[in-house]
């Protein structure tokens, strides 16, 4: 319990130090990116995959920045995350807070402690967005589009760099009428320290 509020406080402090950008500009830029992808690929499933790939590249870089800033500030990362629960808290309370300034909650840990959910009350990426109504002439069914799929890629990329291979999915989306956004994260495997075969000594 004390680690929870520690993480929240650390997240708050990290957020205060980060350079800020205009939220509307951010949302509009992401919106244009998504609509361009929709225009190019047309199939919403393919667009979801692309967003995940883009998020993955972002996540890989985010985690380095996070670890360096958190270390410099001496934010109690001297103690490593002992289990997935700690990792989840760090991702939600510190990661999301530091980069997006939003409060994310964790919950719904599975029995075997290998899955958890991250809940986002408000989503800065989807400001002003309204998914278009079903096109009766049979155009792309944008209901299948996962608008915020970038987050899934970011989490996947970031955790892969610390040797946790995860699968992320958006299960609830405010754009589709739910009350909050929920991202389900499942741990697939813990990777061995991946220096690769090239570096194995003779």
């Amino acid at each position, binding site marked *: 319990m004390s680690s929870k509020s520690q993480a929240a406080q650390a997240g708050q402090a990290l957020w205060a130090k980060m350079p800020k950008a205009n939220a*509307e500009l951010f949302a*509009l830029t992401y*919106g*244009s990116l*998504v*609509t361009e992808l929709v225009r190019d690929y047309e199939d919403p499933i393919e667009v979801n995959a692309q967003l995940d790939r883009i998020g993955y590249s972002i996540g890989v870089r985010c985690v380095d920045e996070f670890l360096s800033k958190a270390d410099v500030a001496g934010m109690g990362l001297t103690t490593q995350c002992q289990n997935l629960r700690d990792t989840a808290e760090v991702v939600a309370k510190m990661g999301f807070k530091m980069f997006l300034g939003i409060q994310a909650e964790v919950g719904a840990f599975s029995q075997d402690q290998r899955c958890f959910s991250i809940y986002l009350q408000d989503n800065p990426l989807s*400001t*002003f*967005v*309204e*998914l*278009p*109504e079903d096109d009766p002439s049979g155009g792309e069914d*944008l209901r299948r589009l996962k608008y915020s799929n970038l987050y899934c890629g970011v989490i996947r990329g970031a955790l892969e760099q610390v040797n946790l291979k995860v699968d992320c999915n958006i299960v609830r989306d405010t754009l589709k009428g739910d009350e909050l956004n929920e991202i389900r994260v499942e741990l697939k495997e813990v990777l061995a320290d991946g220096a690769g075969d090239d570096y194995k000594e003779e």
Partner: protein
Amino acid sequence: MSSPILFVIVGKNEPLFEAEIDTYTGTTGGNDLSTRQNYFVLHSALDLVEKSAWTTNSMYLRVVDKVNHQQVSTFLTAGNIKFMLLHGGKGEEVVRSFFNEVYGYYVKLSMNPFYKYDTPITSLAFENRVRAAARSYLS
């Protein structure tokens, strides 16, 4: 019987949004003939809108045309989209407030990345908000 109020948003080439508001019930109504006549009156006022757009540098163009007992008021957005209201003599300030509120909703709609500028507006949320604004300002 109240004269129904007709609100149309006109883009460069075509109408983008139409709502006929019967102020007593707040829903679409009216018989076919008067509806068609109203559309005709509104669209024939478009030339006059162009003319009066040059006379003032504010967005609200007031009444541009008077036909029988009805008046056409217009509001021109910064992107040259015309909001036109056909009504039976509402006060200017009331109409101005209505237009300003609808302008706010229109700007929020155009921030939606999925809405392309100058295309027909199909959002139900926008339509409901416009009708609610009409009910509160124009009845």
